[in-house]
């Protein structure tokens, strides 16, 4: 699984950080960072929740 974020439409709601803190972080610079672009299968449910909860639809999973 590969996590892709369109930073042009990311609006920093931060819900992905809550759903999958292992994968997403808002840094000191105030921008969204992907901590792990290829997270293990064990995190799939959390990443799927992050995709679902993102109000701008900025996150997608590529297989």
């Amino acid at each position, binding site marked *: 699984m590969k996590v892709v974020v369109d930073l042009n439409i990311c*609006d920093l*709601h*931060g*819900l992905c950080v*809550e759903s999958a803190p292992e994968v997403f972080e*808002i840094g000191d610079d105030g921008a969204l960072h992907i901590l792990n672009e290829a997270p293990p299968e064990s995190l799939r449910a959390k990443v799927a929740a992050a995709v679902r909860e993102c*109000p701008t639809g900025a996150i997608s999973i590529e297989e």
Partner: protein
Amino acid sequence: MLRRIAIIGASLAGLRAAEALRARGFDGELTLIGDEPHRPYDRPPLSKQVLQGVWEPEQTLFRRKDGYDALALDMRLGVRALSLDLRARRVTLADGTFTDYDRLIIATGARVRTLPSIAPRTGLLALRGLDDAIVLRRALMDAPRVAVVGAGFIGLEVAASCRARGLSVTVIEPLPVPFSPIFGRTFGEMIAAMHRDHGVDLRTGVAVTDVVGDSRVAGVAISDGSRIDADVVVVGIGVTPNTEWLEGSGLTLDNGIVCSGSGEAAPDVYAAGDVARIANRWHGDSPRIEHWTNAVEQAVCVAENALAGPEACTSFSSVPYFWSDQYDRKIQFIGRARPHDEMVIVDGSLEDRRLTALYRRGDRVVACLAVNQPRALIKYRKLIAAGASWGAVLSGTAVA
């Protein structure tokens, strides 16, 4: 036997329920009924990107036309549900057809309230759906003066978008301080000042008594005796749940569909989104919530429960979240505050209009408001979800 699931309502909650059902392996017949002619679209951009002209209306569509192939839906758009027969497990539609179900998910949402005893006329508009946004955007091209009735989220987002278009904007709000029942006076005053600084003529503590103009609007009359001239009047005074079609069905209707904690309104019938009142385990109450995230979370919850059945269902539990974008400010709110909860600013300031505030009830932190401080919100959301105590959060000793 679970072969057929019908979803009534093809907006955010309806679509997300359909997606969740398929994602969890439901491979039977899945019907999605929507009363609008459009494929499901996202509402939040309507009052911002679409109204400002930054997006074309089509950009709000959740999926392209071919994006529905994988969901294998029987999607019927532009047709309203007329009635529900619980015993026959049948929803009758306005085009004379019907859909039978083994499980039913109702997500018929809400519609705008209108000003009482005011006749419709050209230029008297509201914003709820895609068609509303298209009509309003077109009207604004030829409307230098806009009056907005109601300083709620929609009203103020419309006001901000109209200012971005360089239009003259007056907002009329009966509350002395906008938002004070939700956020408290302090924050409401900050919002009011922000709009005034951006050139909005915000009139508070007054109500609209009449809309002036015959075939098309010329302005509004307000309760202090004055009159505001306007080429377009936008009414944003809240919404009403779409439950009329369910009257007499046997479902419990009381400002929405009253559901159990699992989202069940009757055996095999579930509701989600703006129309639903699902008990939220996190705060123990069952309000009707009109926010984006709530629709998503309830849709997923009831989809799972519809598949699991009553024995294996889970109860809905969520820390509410909503946001509003006005000018260059993002207002985010999590939790649930009441009018008399104490609010303390823990970072930033009202002067900068960049701040984080916590709301206290007894010894608990119950809500967090952030203006242009998204990181703080993430931190406090965890603590609020965990029910952290006020003292522990303020002293920094609380651990989520």
